[in-house]
């Protein structure tokens, strides 16, 4: 103990706390004042935060704080503000028909932006983010349309869907000629050659001749006598180079055997008429619109 009543460590010259364990003394090195200041300021801030903002969980609820702040309300307000801001354009969209939208650059730009966003949210999971489609999912960029590629056709398809639960749904059914035993396996082999021949590719001439009658009896009803398809019935054109379920012999054979048919949901009850209009305009603009 030094004469001033404070114990100073001889080695470092620093005051000790007076605590001693087995001859080892603890030096008194207090926290820097700036550090303590910030620490106390943080405590004060925290207390203020507890009082003003939602903070403590209770049994069934939580403390709401004096400001009664809620991020969910913020989001609701922001959405409402956005709807208010867009109200004028949405109203114009609801009044205009599809041609009017396409001929009004201002409205078209708005519809395209809304259509693009709605497409990403609702359509991209099946049709792809670039509307490029996939095996069994139509490509919306090309010029092949099962149910028509005019603005009204596209709008109607989006509204009612294909093979959907909507009473007015677009409906077509390719029979499972092989699986259901409608045709013999050899006939399906011949038909496969016939369809390959229809699309202008070299095919087995004998098989094609044998299949002509089978095609006329079983397929021409929907696909037409020349296989050119029928949009009224949603029957694909078999003479072009685009294939929803693939172009190879194996793909064609599989489709005749199993008769795949995908489902597009009805969007009529889920999306607003304005959004569906925007989607139709957007899809039409991708390059294949008629």
């Amino acid at each position, binding site marked *: 103990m030094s004469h001033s009543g404070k114990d100073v460590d001889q080695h470092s010259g620093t005051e000790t706390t007076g605590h001693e364990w087995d001859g080892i003394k603890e030096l008194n090195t207090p926290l820097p004042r700036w550090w303590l200041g910030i620490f106390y300021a943080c405590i004060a801030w925290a207390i203020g935060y507890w009082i003003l903002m939602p903070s403590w969980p209770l049994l069934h609820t939580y403390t709401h704080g004096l400001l009664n702040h809620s991020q969910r309300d913020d989001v609701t307000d922001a959405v409402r503000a956005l709807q208010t801001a867009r109200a004028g354009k949405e109203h114009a969209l609801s009044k205009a028909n599809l041609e009017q939208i396409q001929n009004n650059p201002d409205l078209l730009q708005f519809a395209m932006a809304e259509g693009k966003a709605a497409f990403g949210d609702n359509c991209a999971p099946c049709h792809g983010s670039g509307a490029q489609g996939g095996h069994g999912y139509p490509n919306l*960029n090309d010029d092949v349309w099962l149910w028509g590629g005019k603005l009204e056709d596209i709008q109607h398809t989006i509204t009612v869907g294909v093979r959907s639960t909507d009473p007015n749904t677009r409906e077509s059914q390719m029979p499972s000629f092989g699986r259901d035993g409608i045709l013999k396996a050899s006939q399906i082999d011949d038909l496969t050659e016939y369809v390959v021949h229809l699309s202008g590719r070299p095919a087995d001439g004998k098989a094609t001749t044998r299949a002509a009658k089978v095609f006329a009896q079983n397929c021409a009803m929907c696909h037409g006598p020349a296989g050119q398809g029928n949009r009224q019935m949603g029957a694909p054109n078999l003479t072009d180079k685009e294939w929803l379920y693939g172009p190879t012999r194996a793909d064609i054979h599989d489709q005749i055997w199993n008769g795949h048919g995908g489902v597009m949901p009805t969007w009529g009850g889920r999306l607003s008429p304005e959004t569906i209009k925007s989607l139709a305009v957007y899809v039409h603009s991708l*390059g*294949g619109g008629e």
Partner: protein
Amino acid sequence: MTVHTVVTRTPVEAAHGVETSDAEASNSASRRKFYKSRVPIYPKMMHGTFRRIKWIVMAVTLGIYYLAPWIRWDRGPSAPSQAILVDFAHERFYFFFLEIWPQEVYYITGLLIMSAVALFLVTSLFGRLWCGYACPQTVWTDLFIFVENLIEGDRSARIRLAAAPWSAGKVVKRVSKHTVWLVIAVATGGAWVFYFVDAPTLARELLTGTASIAVYAAIAGFTFTTYSLGGLMREQVCTFMCPWPRIQGAMTDREALSVTYRVDRGEPRGPHKKGSPWEGRGHCIDCRQCIAACPMGIDIRDGLQLECINCGLCIDACDDVMTKIDLPRGLIAYDNDANVTRRLRGEKPRFRFVRPRTVLYAVVLAVVGCVMVYSLATRRSLDLDVLRDRNPNFVSLSGGAVRNGYTLKLMNRFDRPRELYLDVTGIKAKAVNVIGVGDVHLPVKLAVEADKVRALRVLITVAPENLRSGNQHMLFSLSNAAQTEHRMVSAVFVSGRS
């Protein structure tokens, strides 16, 4: 903890009629410690050549800063009529006859490179003239010290005031000083915002309190930085915050001019009694007036140091003293170490302005300047950007043809609407479709509004017989009606065939 006390003492004469100052070189590297609070510097007001130059430079730079946004420049009805305007809202930068688009930001890069090299050149020739005269930190600090000097008095009065207990008089002086400082700071921030929005319109909005919150926030921010950097932090900005004092080490050499104390003439220093001979001793009478004058708080007699901003106020102080004691001026002068060494060796001093370093900087400056002038003179008034669709990469059509989509941006930098001609070469297209226009024949005439970008989606279809495997290279070209300007952009057509 050391307690700073002001010792009042009787003035000591360095020579007849010259008082020794009690100024300390408190900011010298050897006397400065980490975590030590700043010792305030009270620069003494000087009168002389360099002080006069500093006043002139201050008036010119502040004049440019405050008045430049008010210069009008008629650009017709489609563009703002402010000579210098950074128009973020409309993505344009106007500088008198120039209008720079965001795509041409390389002009600003070029300007910055030229400024940097010019700074290197001036520094390698004459030392840190920028720091001493033209740097905003120096100009505003000088202005703030001028105000302080006006309200609180010169150096000794200010020191006395700082040491004096609080009184009504001290409060009045301090409050009025800080008020004037704040007014200057607000005016600084207030002038800054005029560079970004039409000045007369904004001035009206500011006076009626209808300007946007961003404007007030910008003014508040600049008020804060001007007040704290120019009024409170002063030389600490140069010593601790600015990288330039460090960079200058690489720019200067022993031949570059800098404010130099001529050791060869000044040493050995010491007080001088009137009538006693000057032989066998130096001309420095150790009056410390150079330290008293220094806004950076250093002693120039310690030699070249990074704290020195080369402002030359110590030269004025010393010249004044030398005149009083009938010695030639220039004990402290714009000179260099090489000359000091030469004089000590008995050689004649000389200035070598032509050195590999200065020649290199001058050549780089000239080259960059020529490139800038050439590119500005041959600048296109139209431009084209091409962005190929990547999702989907290509579209196969029912007849076997393949289609690629492109987003084109047609830029018209003219101040009036124009019809531009778009053409596609290098590929045999079956059809070219411009979304919103329809199928077109090439070259297609497309109207673009004055000073605007028109974005278009263009679909190019190639018939199956013209498809080649892999990527086909093609050119989009845009030209004006007179065919005097062309812009070609290469692009690829993806056939999807391997």
